[in-house]
């Protein structure tokens, strides 16, 4: 199986006063089709790790190969291009545009990565169908439940057909019923071959993943 993520000796220290070593000497290997969860207490460095994995943030040390391409040393434009084309994000706070309807929100998914314009709406509908929201296509996000909103965000992430789906506390704002629906969806995605990295501090969420990694004080430990 080919490696999607290969972190070697990654460190990230925030230059605040005092400096915060949010990640220290992190090694991580994730293969295509893996379903990995990262758990850890608040402030342990989970979001920092996800930002590094998502090319939103640069580590201070170490190496990060994404699909065999060394990303450290790439320019902002190249990292942006890889981020847009190869990585899908799902955030705790959904990050939907409140004034655009559900379909338009999903259509943003490959706006910047050269997705075909002509069938973008159809592909957005298909993605919404995949997350079970084909009956909500014309809704405003504000009229949806939390779980439905998160499914819109997942549909948006899926539109660009990413190699990697990064989820930061995807169920952090959801009740148990909605959480269960999202986890069902993750299982479906996993079966369809999507590579999933889910950050959570919720054990019910992390237990669904085939592989669990724990982070504490910026250090990873497999278990």
């Amino acid at each position, binding site marked *: 199986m080919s490696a999607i993520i290969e972190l070697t000796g990654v460190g990230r220290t925030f230059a605040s006063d005092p400096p915060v070593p949010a990640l220290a000497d992190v090694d991580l290997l994730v293969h295509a089709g893996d379903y990995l969860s990262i758990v850890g207490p608040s402030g342990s460095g989970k979001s920092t790790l996800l930002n590094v994995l998502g090319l939103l943030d640069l580590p201070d040390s170490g190496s990060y190969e994404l699909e065999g391409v060394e990303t450290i040393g790439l320019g902002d434009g190249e990292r942006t291009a890889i981020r847009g084309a190869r990585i899908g994000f799902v955030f705790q706070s959904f990050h939907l545009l409140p004034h*655009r309807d559900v379909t338009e929100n999903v259509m943003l998914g490959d*706006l910047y990565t050269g997705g075909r314009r002509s069938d973008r709406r159809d592909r957005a509908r298909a993605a919404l169908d995949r997350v079970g929201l084909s009956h909500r296509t014309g809704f405003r996000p504000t009229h949806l439940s939390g779980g439905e909103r998160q499914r819109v965000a997942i549909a948006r992430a899926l539109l660009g057909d990413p190699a990697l789906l990064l989820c930061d506390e995807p169920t952090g704002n959801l009740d148990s019923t909605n959480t269960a629906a999202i986890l069902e969806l993750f299982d479906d995605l996993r079966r369809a071959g999507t590579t999933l990295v889910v950050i959570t501090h919720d054990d019910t969420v992390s237990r669904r993943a085939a592989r669990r990694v724990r982070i504490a004080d910026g250090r990873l430990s497999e278990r």
Partner: protein
Amino acid sequence: MRSRLDPRDLAGEVLAGIAVRPARTVLTVLGTVLGIGALVTTLGVATTAGNQIAGRFDAATATEVTVDIPEPIAPGSPPVVAWESLDDLARLNGVEAAAAYVTTQPGKEPDVRANTVRDPGRVLDRVLPVVGATADLPAAARTTVAAGRFFDTGHITRRDRVAVLGAQAAEQLGLTRIDNQPAVFVDGTPFTVVGVLAAVGRPDQQALAGSVIVPWTAGADALHLGPARTVVVTTALGAAALIAEQAPVALSPNDPAALTVNAPPDPAALRTGVADDISGLLLILGLVSLVVGGLGIANVTLVTVMERTAEIGLRRALGARRRHIAAQFLLESAVIGLLGGVIGASLGVVAVVLVSVGRGWTPVLSLAPVLAAPVAGAVVGLVAGLYPALRSARLQPVEALRGPG
């Protein structure tokens, strides 16, 4: 591998960004609307007013010069302007017709009666001004004879007692026809009526309509009318100012300053003068409101960028480059400026038309400012959006994603 954004998609995002906040967009547009509207109105009203004034001082008016001659210092002294010097004026380049005349002093008008009135009970002596004139008076005063003819230089040299009546004077004297050789008695002296004038064209020579006009020689003989007191000149188009300058010297080489010249104001100078007056203040006002409008756009766009920090973070996560973010906000403010320009120009045109209608003017609008207005609005928006757009592009994705929204 590069991120890219189809221009049509960019346009869609820009329009969506503007359309979702209609109230804010309206308020943001307002400053530019006022600025552009004020500018278009100013220029339009200035052009219209300038055109109006130029129209009032039309080609005819701009060719009319009058010279007033003072009384001789003492009754015996030589006249300030001799009748003969009128020829020197008439020879000047640009003079089309020139005539000199003298009118009986107000309050000393003679009794005039016509001989044709048969009913003695109705006969009343009329008190009418008598004018002693040179032969070119009709051409110089822009009138013609309605009946008969005007006296000529022959009448003048022969000192013939002939008379031409102004239209009103003829009516007052009950003279309806002249083919029967009527005569008028001026202070008892008979003058043969050879003609009756039509309406007088020059506004400043309307008094002729109510006068009895005789050759200046006969006037001097019978009524002691004295030397010329008024010279009327019509000039070729555009020559009025020049003739006004040269006339006193031609008429009174010894003392040109004694004469008073009335010439029309130079229409070109008048037009620009009026335009300057109106434009000056209003243009500054318009520019100020345009700057204020630009600052308004800048301010609102900056607030929008702050508010949409999370959206910017999301777009960056979805693969938007800095330039895509900058372009979106830059275009949003440019479109708002453009909107302001279009609306402002339209309101400006309406205002110019309303002002013109209110004053009974013909609205005149040059196309250039109306077409330039939307461009100016867009440029204002573009400049205003520059700083907010740069701010938006400089946001780090991680920081932005944490932001509000």
